[in-house]
């Protein structure tokens, strides 16, 4: 663990928007993050629709801690530490499947998918039976805290973490645009998984607020006409919002009411009606009155969302898709990306098919947006690790004057919670890293923006 004085200096610079390059490569910083960020925050593990049937499970991690996310026989979702209570063997070595029990390969202890220990070979001979060794005391451990919101299952390793809803705070308002387009909620497919040689924070920062990269990094997408309009250059009209634990980007929509504007991004009328019924008045106002649609977003620390609407056939209309992604830290310079396709359960089948194509074309392992993003992030990670480069302070002060004043006022009439600015600026990246600073310092409270 790096000494607190050095961490204090890093945090001080980060707060000014001068980002020490070392935070993207230093093993000591990574160790501190594993302990203080991932050991305290609420971390996304899975969506309930990945495990619809009793017995279904997926195996996920919080950095290096492995958990089985299982739906037990009673339909309840469990998050069980994937560590045998005997000598610590990894109980489940598949990544998904269906099982009523998990049997440890080492000495054969058997657990139900509720976590209960139900079988111990030679229980009487070896342990003196239930009298000396009550099986009920040696079930698989649950993650210290487990909760879900709109089917998104989170865990926290911190028994004292605030309740999930409180943690999410105002960001819930925005989360609903991605994860609750009808009362039925999402079905998610995937994930695609791949490893990139990039620090996990770079993607998280990019998704929460970097509208400035779109016109340049993604110019190839505009050139090939994947969008009806030259969309990247419209990014400066978008609003950037940040509320409690997360923030994101939006696009300005063409004029019209709620339904017209949703039609303009390609939603069919049935879905629009369900959105109108499901979203609050303020949520509807964000689209229908203010005229914005959410695009990329990040929830601290490492869960991002993307919503975009390219075309999937020559001259065809835009087709929106939603993707959920996790920046799973592997090391200071390596991240495993989990990327899911998500779609409202009640969407028409034809829409689901097209939306899936729209996702594959633009994001994920082969996505044409994603490819160029990741190239930037791996290159940053590589060069920022240099002995000398590590000491450089990178510039994350867009939207601030030299003295640190805001160049533009936050919007006064923004219908959502938190703070919102129109135009380019690194407000959200700073807000996300402010949370990072607070967690490194030991706080659990949300940032006041």
């Amino acid at each position, binding site marked *: 663990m790096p000494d607190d004085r050095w961490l204090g200096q890093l945090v001080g610079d980060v707060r000014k928007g001068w980002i020490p390059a070392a935070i993207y490569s230093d093993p000591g910083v990574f160790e501190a993050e594993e302990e203080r960020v991932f050991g305290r925050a609420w971390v996304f593990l899975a969506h309930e629709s990945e495990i619809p049937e009793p017995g279904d499970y997926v195996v996920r991690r919080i950095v290096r801690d492995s958990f089985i996310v299982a739906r037990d026989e009673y339909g309840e979702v469990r998050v069980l530490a994937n560590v045998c209570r005997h000598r610590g063997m990894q109980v489940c070595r598949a990544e998904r499947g269906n099982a009523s029990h998990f049997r440890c390969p080492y000495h054969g202890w058997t657990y139900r998918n509720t976590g209960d220990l139900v079988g111990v070979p030679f229980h009487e001979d070896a342990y003196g039976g239930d009298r000396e060794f009550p099986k009920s005391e040696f079930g698989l451990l649950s993650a210290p805290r487990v909760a879900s919101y709109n089917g998104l299952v989170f865990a926290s390793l911190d028994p004292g973490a605030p309740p999930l809803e409180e943690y999410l705070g105002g960001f819930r308002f925005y989360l609903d645009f991605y994860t609750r387009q009808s009362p039925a909620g999402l079905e998610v497919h995937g994930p*695609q998984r791949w490893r990139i040689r990039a620090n996990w924070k770079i993607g998280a920062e990019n998704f929460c607020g970097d509208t400035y990269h779109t016109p340049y*990094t993604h110019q190839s997408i505009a050139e090939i006409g994947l969008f009806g309009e030259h969309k990247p250059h419209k990014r400066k009209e978008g609003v950037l919002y940040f509320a409690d634990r997360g923030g994101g980007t939006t696009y300005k929509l063409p004029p019209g009411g709620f339904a017209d504007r949703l039609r303009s991004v390609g939603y069919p009328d049935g879905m629009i009606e369900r959105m109108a019924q499901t979203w609050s008045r303020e949520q509807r106002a964000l689209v229908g009155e203010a005229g914005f649609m959410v695009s990329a977003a990040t929830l601290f620390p490492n869960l991002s969302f993307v919503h975009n609407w390219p075309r999937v056939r020559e001259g065809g209309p835009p087709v929106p898709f939603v993707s959920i992604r996790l920046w799973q830290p592997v090391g200071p310079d390596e991240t495993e990306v989990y990327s899911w396709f998500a779609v409202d359960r009640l969407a028409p089948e034809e829409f689901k098919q097209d939306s899936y194509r729209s996702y*594959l074309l633009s994001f994920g392992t082969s996505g044409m947006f994603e490819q160029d993003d990741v190239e930037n992030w791996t290159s940053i990670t590589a060069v920022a690790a240099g002995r000398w480069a590590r000491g450089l302070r990178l510039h994350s002060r867009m939207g601030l004057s030299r003295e640190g004043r805001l160049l533009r006022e936050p919007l006064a009439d923004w219908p959502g919670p938190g703070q919102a600015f129109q135009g380019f600026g690194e407000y959200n990246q700073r807000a996300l890293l402010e949370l990072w600073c607070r967690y490194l310092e030991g706080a659990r409270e949300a940032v006041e923006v």
Partner: protein
Amino acid sequence: MSGVVQGEELVRVGSGDPDYHAAVDFLHQEAELLDARRWRDWLALLAEDVTYEMPVRVTRARTLEDSTLADMDHFREDRFALQKRVERLETEYAWTEDPPSRTRHFVTNVQVFRAASGDLVVKSYLLLFRSRGDTRPPEWVCGERTDRLRRTPEGLRLVHRRLVVDESVLRTQNLAIFL
């Protein structure tokens, strides 16, 4: 066999058969075009109604059966999608392939089957070597392809490809390449 029409009768074509050699020649020629980044020529080898898929592989208990996801792919392409990818690589802004990867598509273990329609169904192993820049270690992608080749007056054309990759977590930065 994956990628084959259900219930279709396939007859194995031995390595002495001219069709076997035609299929192998096709795969070798295709590999060379991809490694030389001659994507337009590569597109010309694909049928108009081509479908190109690469499902996500997963680690499951006990069996290799069902070890691909039915509802998630790395690629599920039609001609429009492949065409757009090629157009993108041809722009000045496809950063991830500028400077370009140096690739080798190694194609081995070829087995050829003849369908009643005359199409050739070709199984092969693919090992892709990808070297990028001068500081990164090389990346590999390995898998099995099942292709369907149609006879046309211009020669064989790829109608369908299904690539089953061996890694459940890809160790390549992206798939800005074709497999």
